[in-house]
């Protein structure tokens, strides 16, 4: 394994998905606030 492969293996694969899910929840909260404000 090269250096890149070691770094890729160490990086948690789920970090991206969790980040995307958090961004989506934050965006939904903003959307709900905008819809509530009218």
């Amino acid at each position, binding site marked *: 394994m090269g250096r890149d492969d070691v770094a*890729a293996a160490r990086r948690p694969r789920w970090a991206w998905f969790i980040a995307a899910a958090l*961004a989506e929840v934050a965006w939904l909260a903003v959307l709900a606030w905008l819809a*509530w404000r009218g």
Partner: protein
Amino acid sequence: VRIALTDVPLWAALLPVAGYLVAVGCLHLRRRPVALSGHVDVTFLALGIAGMVIAGPLALLQPGAGTSVWTTVVLLLGFAVIVAGALLAARPRMVIYNVGLDQLRPVVASVAASLDPTARWAGETAALPARGLQVHLDDRGSARTVSVIAAGKTSAEAWAEFSRRLRRAIRTVRVRRSPWAWAFLAAGAGVAGMAAWLAVASG
């Protein structure tokens, strides 16, 4: 508390679309292919279009259902249920971004041979009779994205093992940047720019 989905501004609904396009552009910019399971791929697409769904069909349904918070939650859950149903009904699939069929096929062939020495090919489909698995490489010409789809009757364990090994094998492949990256990034920037313009014009 009342939440009227018809009041969701279009600029806010467009933001996830821009994010999705930029994310796909970034996948095409990488020098190694990215393998996503079909479920993850469809989930990201559903999250990307969620804003358009909320501002469109769900806002259209809401007057009949009322503007209570829980009505809004149930409408959102209805969309989630449709997406979940589509995911469950879909064939097991792996989507590999930024790879050509000519580069992917030898990788799939070596994974198939390691799982079942009696594996044989017909066109772009490999049959692994000892494992109860057939995989088909679905290539969209010059799109540089290939789907590996389980065809026919599929053993769930065999597919799990195959996709695990394919994911590992694909890490060794190096590719050049896909020219599609710039098209996706430009489209993402265009949608983001339109959202910004709408926000400024309406604000």
